[in-house]
C-alpha cells in the first residue's frame, strides 16, 4: 500500500478549500486541526455550539479562562468582533443554514451522503452532542478521516452499517488517500495520491468511485 497522508496533512488539505469570509464549525478533535492550516490572507470565522462566534487560538498554558471554551471544552480566546449568544441562538445558526461549512470526523460515509459518527453500537454510553444538528444545518458538510479503518476495512461505503448521524448530507470527504465529493448519490473522485492508481484506490473503497472530468493529484507538504 502506498504512503498515506497523516491527519495533519488531511487537515491541511481541507484547510486549502476554506473560502474567504466563510463561517465554519470544526468538530471536536481531528477537525479542529484545520484552523492551524488556514491559508494566509483568508478570513474565516469559527462558530462553536456552546455560544461563541469568531473565537481564536488556545491561550498560553496557565492563562485559560474555563468560561471561555469551545465545544470540545478546550480553552479558546476571542478575535476582535466575537459575539456570545445562548444555545438556542447558536443552533439557530446551525439548523437555519447560516454556517457555510461544518467539518466532522466519521466512522462511515456512504455514497448517498449518509454519515455515521456517533455510535459504534450497543454496549457503550451513547453520546451525540451537536453532530446531528450540524449535519443538517451547514451548507456544506465535510468529513476528514483516514480512508480505511485501523483494520484496513473501507470507511467509504455503499451504505452505512452503524447507526446514522444524518441522511444524505455529506458533500466532501477528505481522506488519507483522496478527496471525494458526493454528488447525486455518488462518490466523485476529485483528487487522489499520485502514487496510487485508481484501481488501487477503488480496492480500498467499498462505494464506487466515479470520475467526472480529470482527477487531480493530492499533493500535500510535510506539516
Amino acid at each position: 500500500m502506498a504512503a498515506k497522508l497523516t491527519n495533519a496533512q488531511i487537515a491541511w488539505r481541507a484547510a486549502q478549500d476554506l473560502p474567504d469570509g466563510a463561517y465554519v464549525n470544526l468538530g471536536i478533535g481531528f477537525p479542529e486541526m484545520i484552523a492551524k492550516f488556514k491559508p494566509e490572507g483568508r478570513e474565516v470565522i469559527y462558530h462553536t455550539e456552546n455560544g461563541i462566534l469568531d473565537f481564536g487560538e488556545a491561550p498560553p498554558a496557565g492563562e485559560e479562562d474555563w468560561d471561555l471554551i469551545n465545544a470540545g471544552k478546550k480553552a479558546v480566546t476571542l478575535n476582535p468582533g466575537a459575539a456570545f449568544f445562548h444555545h438556542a441562538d447558536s443552533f439557530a445558526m446551525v439548523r437555519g443554514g447560516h454556517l457555510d461549512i461544518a467539518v466532522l470526523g466519521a466512522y462511515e460515509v456512504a455514497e448517498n451522503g449518509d454519515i455515521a459518527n456517533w455510535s459504534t453500537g450497543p454496549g457503550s454510553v451513547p453520546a451525540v452532542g451537536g453532530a446531528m444538528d450540524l449535519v443538517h444545518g451547514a451548507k456544506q458538510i465535510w468529513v476528514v478521516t483516514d480512508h480505511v479503518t485501523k483494520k484496513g476495512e473501507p470507511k467509504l461505503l455503499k451504505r452505512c452499517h452503524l447507526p446514522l448521524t444524518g441522511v444524505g448530507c455529506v458533500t466532501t470527504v477528505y481522506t488519507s488517500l483522496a478527496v471525494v465529493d458526493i454528488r447525486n448519490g455518488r462518490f466523485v473522485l476529485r483528487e487522489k495520491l499520485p502514487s496510487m492508481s485508481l484501481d488501487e484506490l477503488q480496492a480500498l473503497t467499498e462505494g464506487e468511485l466515479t470520475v467526472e472530468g480529470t482527477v487531480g493529484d493530492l499533493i500535500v507538504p510535510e506539516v
Partner: protein
Amino acid sequence: MNKVCQGLEEAIAGIEDGMAVMIGGFGGSGAPIELIHALVDRYRRTGSPGNLTVINNNAGNGAIGIAAMIDAGMVAKMVCSFPRSSDPRAFTEKYLAGEIGLELVPQGTLAERIRAAGAGIPAFYTPTSYGTLVAEGKPVAEFDGRMYVQERWLKADVALIKAELADRKGNLTYRKAARNFAPLMAMAARITIVQASRIVEPGGIDPEHVVTPGIFVDRLVEVANPKQEEALLREGAK
C-alpha cells in the same frame, strides 16, 4: 470579508421584482427610513423593484416609509399583524379598492414564524388563534389536552433593518425598543441589509452586548443621524 457598502444604492442592489422583503420596525420605531426611501427612489426612477411582498408588523403611516412604498405602487401584498396607524390612508385606500393583498398574522405568530425561518424550523404549534377565523384551513393538533394551530416558517429574500452600532463583521446593537423584529428578520432573510448609525471596527462592540451576531448580516451601510419615522410624521412630513 467586507460587508460595508459605500452608499444606499449599493446596499439595496439586487432587490428585484416580486421579492419578499422584511422590513424592521414597530410603527416608526426601528423603521429603516433611508433604506426604504432609497428603494422607493429606485422604483420611481426605473420601475423596479415592484410587485413586492412586504413583511412588517404594520402597513405604513402617513406618506413616508412603507406608506410611500404602497403609494408608489411597489407593494403587491402586506404580511402584517396590524394594518392600522394614526394615518393608515395609503394602505386602506388600496386595500378597500382591492389593489393590495393582506395576510393578517397575529403579532406573536408573526414573530415566531420569522424566528422559525431563521432557526431552520419549518413548522411549529401555537395556541394563538385556535378557534378563530385566522386559523381557518390550518392543521390543528392536541398536545397535553389542549388544542394548537400549526404555523409555518416565514422566509424572505431580503431584510431591511436599522441598527444603532455595527462592526465591519456585521455584529449589531439596536436603540431601545427599535430592536423589535430586526434581530429575527436578520435571521430569516437570504440577504440582510442593515443601515447603522455608526460602523465601528471589530472589537468596538463588547461580545457580551452583541444582539445580532454578524453571521446573520450580509451588507452594512452607515447612515449617521438617521431619520425617525414617527418624529418625521409629527413634524408634518409628506
